[in-house]
């Protein structure tokens, strides 16, 4: 039920009044409901759970956290 990895939104379309899209996970395309992420744009990354995208990755936050992790690790590694 739980697909924890981020997928990239490739295209958007509407189906019976619902926002849907194709999401790519490492070369595999799946169809997902995007109704809970209505602002999503093609090219953005989402987490899909049981056929629904539940959130869009905050790219700035992803980079910020990662930079922080690297920094903490580095300073600790030296310390």
């Amino acid at each position: 039920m739980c697909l924890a990895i981020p997928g990239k939104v490739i295209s958007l379309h509407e189906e019976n009044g619902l926002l849907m899209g194709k999401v790519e996970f490492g070369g595999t395309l799946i169809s997902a409901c995007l109704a809970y992420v209505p602002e999503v744009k093609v090219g953005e990354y989402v987490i899909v759970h049981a056929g629904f995208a539940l959130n869009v990755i905050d790219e700035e936050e992803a980079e910020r956290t990662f930079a922080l992790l690297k920094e903490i690790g580095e300073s600790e590694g030296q310390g």
Partner: protein
Amino acid sequence: MKYLEEYRNPEIAHRLLDEIRDKVTRPWVIMEICGGQTHAILRNGIDELLPDTVTLVHGPGCPVCVTPLELIEKALTLASRPEVTFVSFGDMLRVPGVSRDLFKVKSEGGDVRIVYSPLDAIRIAKENPDRQVVFFAVGFETTAPNSAMLVAQAVREEITNLSLLVSHVLVPPAMTALLDSPQNRVQAYLAAGHVCTVMGWQQYESIVRDYHVPIVVTGFEPVDLLSGILSAIKQLESGQAKIENQYARMVTREGNLYAQRQIDDVFQICDRTWRGIGVIPRSGLKLRDKYATFDAEPRFGLTDLVIAEPADCISGIILQGLKKPNECPQFGNRCTPATPLGATMVSSEGACAAYYNYQRFRNLSEK
């Protein structure tokens, strides 16, 4: 893949492990709630890399594992009815009921269909207008919005041959129930990243305040988990208790408001039995009265069933973090993924299956 490789960086993982070793001065017990995290921890050997003083225990965060036997029996009853097409996520099919599972019903000719998205139930209902389609709505706050959308869409498309067997459960009441238990060992929580994606981390503020327990919202990759564990250790060592959000690339304080609104429109909070644990007040979701026509239980006249758990399976104790799977006498002997005695061995997210798949057979007396 983007947003994945970074969080699997072995060099950073090792630095985080070093820092954890550096910071720990006493034994601590940390629970990861989510079965997906349990699997990630075991698959990556994180439990074995941590210092002996840090014990990870596995929480009740596997929806397949905690779905009560009564509901499984109701599912089996419905799936056996000739007029019913029973629609379920694949991992529910092997969960043992009293004497059989959904696979058995399917092999005996029951119309049981596996879907990945709840919305597939709409398509099946439209393709089979002369049949009754029942969707087995299980899962936490992460699948509840999807079931809610199924109901909303069925209303929109005026589909009447569809109903839901609802067994949705909520994580925070289970967390407080564990902390309230006199046997509780949990000193800090790694909160389930995806539940928080929907509900936001604000739902934990009262738990942190009332129980003085650190909660770190954590993702699913090794670096996510190790940095979550490190944050929890730092708090424990300094006597703090606050919420930290290690998974900020996905989780905000408020969560996904669209999903929350949809859940709230379709469902209301109810008491629910958790398999192996018992009734936890206000820990489940049921359909609101205005959607009562979508409730499979009254539609098919299913009465309340009370069924005892199998006596030799200790999964309830495992789901409460009181014992580890390899401490169960049946583990790896009578109970394996091929011959499961309990749901925690059946489910791909279950703790017993994780221990079995990643070969945690070490002799306990050596510990």
